């Protein structure tokens, strides 16, 4: 009995020691948690703002849509497919050899091209762009989004079904957002979206040169609401990489051209918050200057 009690005593000491150790681990774990939390807070501190001091703080966080939505909107406006407008696939090798920003921008342009091809039922081109996007995604840590859940096979099988492919692309988008958020790399999605947006604008303006479709023009102008958010999001992330600053300068230059459109200035003079594209009258010369700037930025991006 004594021996048993002794064993129980030892066992109880062990349990006690075990809980002590666990408590210590919990405390240490808390410490680690603090460090992680500080990191997280650092990410959001710019956006924090006590209600009392609303004048001075940079309080906004900026949401950006998916490349697929941009392409869908332009398609609804009547954007037709023309061969030769998309970023050539053989540029991918340059992006793979480049830095993170070059790779990410390259992926962004290809995601936009993929959406353009899918929405216009260019099956073979869609396959090629999907394959290239998948390969490029590996180099920036997004392979999971393109390869999990049987995505490659489902894409192959459903390539002729626009709705199914759109659904798969939205799953890829969601998984990419998850991976980047988990890794605290949300700025990568800002860069990728900038590449995708510029590519969409390039395709939109080039198709407009060919067709002079007024709906497309209205939509191109409407996209400038997105440009403002891209600029704000790049501004917040410009310290991440010197190339982000270059991108920011490009976007600001494009935004300046837009803000100098006569009708934009007139509308902004009465209500700077909301621009109704239907009320805008863009001259040929204004749109030409805008188109040239988009082309200049896009050509620099695709060079890698």
């Amino acid at each position, binding site marked *: 009995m004594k021996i048993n009690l002794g064993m129980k005593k030892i066992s109880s000491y062990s349990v006690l020691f075990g809980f002590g150790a666990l408590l210590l681990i919990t405390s240490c774990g808390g410490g680690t*948690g603090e460090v992680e939390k500080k990191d997280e807070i650092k990410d959001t501190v710019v956006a924090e703002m006590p*209600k009392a001091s609303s004048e001075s703080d940079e*309080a906004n966080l900026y949401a950006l849509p998916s490349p697929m939505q941009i392409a869908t909107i332009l398609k609804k406006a009547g954007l037709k497919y023309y061969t030769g407008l998309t970023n050539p696939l053989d540029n991918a090798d340059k992006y793979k050899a480049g830095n993170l920003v070059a790779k990410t921008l390259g992926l962004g342009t290809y995601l936009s091209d993929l959406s353009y091809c899918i929405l216009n039922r260019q099956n073979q081109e869609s396959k090629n762009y999907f394959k290239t996007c998948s390969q490029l995604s590996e180099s920036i840590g997004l392979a999971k989004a393109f390869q999990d859940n049987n995505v490659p096979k489902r894409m192959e099988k459903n390539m002729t079904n626009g709705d199914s492919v759109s659904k798969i692309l939205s799953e890829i988008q969601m998984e990419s957002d998850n991976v980047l958020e988990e890794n605290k790399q949300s700025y990568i999605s800002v860069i990728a979206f900038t590449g995708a947006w510029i590519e969409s604008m390039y395709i939109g303006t080039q198709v407009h040169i060919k067709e002079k479709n007024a709906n497309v023009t209205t939509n191109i102008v409407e996209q400038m609401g997105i440009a403002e958010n891209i600029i704000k999001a790049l501004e917040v992330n410009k310290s991440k990489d010197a190339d982000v600053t270059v991108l920011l300068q490009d976007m600001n230059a494009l935004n300046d051209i837009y803000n100098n459109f006569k009708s934009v200035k007139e509308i902004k003079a009465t209500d700077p918050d909301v621009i109704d594209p239907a009320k805008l009258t863009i001259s040929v010369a204004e749109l030409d200057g805008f188109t040239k700037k988009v082309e200049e930025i896009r050509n620099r991006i695709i060079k890698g």
Partner: protein
Amino acid sequence: MDKMIFTKLLKLTTVFALLFSVFAFQGDAPCDAKALKDKAKKQLEPYTYDMSKLTHITYKPQAWLKEIEVPLFIGEKYRLVFNTEALPKQIVISIYNRDKDSKKRKLLFTTKDAAADKREFAFDIAMARKAFIDYEMPAGDSTIDGGCLVFMMGYK
């Protein structure tokens, strides 16, 4: 004597066990981003996923506000979904047509009067160029651990 020591140790162990569970529950509110987003995705149906944002929330002695600016396209229909299950203390989510500094802004949606146990919210919006989502964190005990919430948007 041994039995007494054993009983005391047993009591101590129980106390430590209880303390441990308290510590364990005071740790981070479970912020399983994937699980939260999967739930939000279900609420989003039949809209197509467009974007999502996981926001970490901390509590401070004073009330504070975080605003997310969401660009929209005027002819599109959107669904905005929120899941606040991973927040230890409820916050107010409000959606406006203009930013917090605008005198002309209109409230489009708010969770202010929602039931205290409601943790999933959805709001459909159309014919808008922008939406401004305000997370209003109540004044509270800054020692309470924070949590996170998910915002997801889809389009038709």
